[in-house]
């Protein structure tokens, strides 16, 4: 039977659901990453499929389980960064056929199925539960957490992988055509790039609260600094360059008020985790990191693009859901790893959380204080997508590693790492996980 997309019933979308019924009963015990690259070099061993296998095997090894103990696999089948296989370019069948392929030749090259992974990981002999999360690792984590809690699987791999191809992203396909379908035209005809919606919300935010774009600079330099201490990340591996406030302020605009650095750099990578029950986690190699709650936002804007009012209402609601299900308050958060790619999302997320007591309109002032990993108020200690490239994975990996005490040079020192929250991407439309060093 083909793997299905997770049903809506697996997500915690609503307020008033109370404490999550599996609070503290699911744990992350293994982390695995592939290397990173800016774009695919066309080799089999660096394809998105090959790197997914590598990340999964590393997560299994990190957890210290044997592959035959794995009985679940939750992945995100979409792997694009915005690059799609060109219509006029033949699929490289020598690469496709170097794996145990499925019926779709792009499987393992520009998308991913659980069937393809299981065909190419013969050591996974006992996987009897597979499911797809939509879009992001944040989504797949919610699905895996609920599946383990519900007893659908007890030792489950979770994967998100990304392919990136030659050329500038989103510039192929319909955007290169002379005419487009009517439904798409109502949104895309005006030529706004991907960051435009966030830039709009940020523009309204600045007008409403009297803030300016340059006030983002401390967040940017902090994120790159943290990213350069993330050895699994793109900037640390390939371009170990600091970002200065001047670099940021004088960068070219993409969609003003969002500039080049407000956009995360598209990369290739795969990230994987091993989740299991809290009970079973006791016997594994790594210190378990327990999941206190998962929460989701499935809100839609009234019309074409979310207004600031819609954004603030939804992030506040998401914050309430996150805390309610975990049985915690904002004061319990040791740090936050909310989404940042585009950067101008981040202040919406942390204001919705009320992180360190900040209210709407206060995040950019908060950025002017000590937000470093050494201080009492760490902001995005992972460095996020801005610090390590577009994966939507670093925020989760860092939360796990911080609570395990193995974040290396990135380890927070100004606070005791006990409870963290990570997730995203959109203020309207995201998935969140609350992590804890202890199950209660």
């Amino acid at each position, binding site marked *: 039977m083909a793997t299905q997309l997770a049903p809506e019933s697996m997500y915690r979308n609503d307020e008033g659901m109370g404490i999550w019924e599996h609070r503290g009963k699911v744990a992350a015990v293994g982390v695995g990453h592939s290397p990173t690259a800016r774009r695919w070099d066309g080799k089999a061993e660096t394809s998105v499929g090959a790197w997914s296998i590598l990340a999964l095997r590393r997560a299994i090894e990190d957890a210290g389980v044997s592959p035959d103990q794995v009985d679940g696999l939750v992945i995100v089948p979409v792997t694009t960064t915005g690059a799609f296989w060109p219509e006029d370019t033949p699929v490289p069948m020598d690469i496709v056929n170097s794996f145990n392929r499925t019926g779709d030749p792009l499987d393992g090259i520009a998308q991913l199925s659980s069937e393809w992974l299981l065909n190419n990981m013969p050591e996974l002999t006992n996987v009897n539960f597979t499911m797809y999360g939509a879009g992001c690792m944040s989504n797949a984590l919610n699905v895996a957490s609920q599946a383990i809690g519900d007893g659908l699987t007890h030792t489950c791999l979770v994967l998100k992988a990304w392919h990136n191809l030659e050329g500038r992203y989103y510039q192929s396909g319909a955007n290169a055509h*002379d005419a487009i379908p*009517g439904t798409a*035209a109502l949104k895309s005809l005006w030529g706004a790039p*991907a960051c435009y919606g966030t830039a709009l919300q940020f523009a309204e935010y600045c007008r409403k609260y009297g803030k300016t774009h340059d006030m983002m600079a401390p967040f940017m330099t902090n994120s790159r600094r943290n990213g350069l201490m993330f050895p699994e990340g793109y900037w640390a591996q390939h371009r170990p360059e600091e970002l200065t406030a001047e670099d940021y302020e004088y960068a070219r605009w993409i969609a003003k008020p969002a500039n080049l650095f407000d956009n995360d750099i598209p990369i290739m990578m795969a990230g994987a985790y091993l989740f299991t029950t809290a009970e079973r986690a006791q016997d594994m190699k790594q210190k378990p990191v327990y999941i206190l709650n998962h929460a989701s936002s499935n809100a839609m804007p009234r019309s074409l693009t979310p207004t600031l009012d819609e954004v603030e209402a939804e992030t506040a609601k998401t914050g309430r859901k996150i805390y309610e299900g975990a049985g915690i308050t904002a004061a319990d958060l040791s740090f936050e790893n909310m989404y940042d790619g585009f950067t101008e999302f981040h202040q919406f997320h942390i204001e919705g959380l009320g992180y360190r007591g900040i209210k709407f309109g206060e995040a950019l002032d908060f950025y002017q204080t000590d937000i470093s990993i050494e201080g009492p108020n760490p902001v995005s200690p992972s460095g996020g997508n801005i610090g390590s490239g577009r994966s939507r994975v670093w925020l989760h990996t860092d939360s796990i590693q911080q609570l395990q005490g193995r974040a290396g040079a990135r380890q927070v020192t100004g606070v005791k790492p006990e409870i963290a929250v990570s997730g995203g991407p959109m203020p309207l439309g995201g998935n969140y996980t609350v992590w804890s060093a202890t199950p209660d």
Partner: protein
Amino acid sequence: MVKQGIVPDELTKPFFDAANDERLVIQNCTACDRLQHPPAPACSQCGSGDGLEWKEMSGRGKIYNYGVVYDTPVRLLQVTQPFNVAVIMLDDDPGIQMYSHLPGTPPDDVPVGASVEVIFEATANDQKVPEWRVVD
């Protein structure tokens, strides 16, 4: 500034046919008495597809917000960068938004909150599309 051509589909044909007649119409759910844009097969509030109709608008609105695009992914528009992309809210219902290049308004010189009126602009395949200009 020539936009990509448009091939109306089943959902959007009434909208674009009206644009060719220089009329602005928006989908309306008669059961909820609620406008929605972009159009959808069912009302986003009550979920019914039975009571959807197309309602003519006054063609007046306000500039709610804008960004200035310096790096568009759309090939046909790259020669005209930078350009405004504004969000218009209709006077008939400020919850309904439409995008606009604001022809006649210089990039980044956009009067947020100003009144605008609809005009109709031909795209690359002569299909007309609603655009908006600032009312003096």
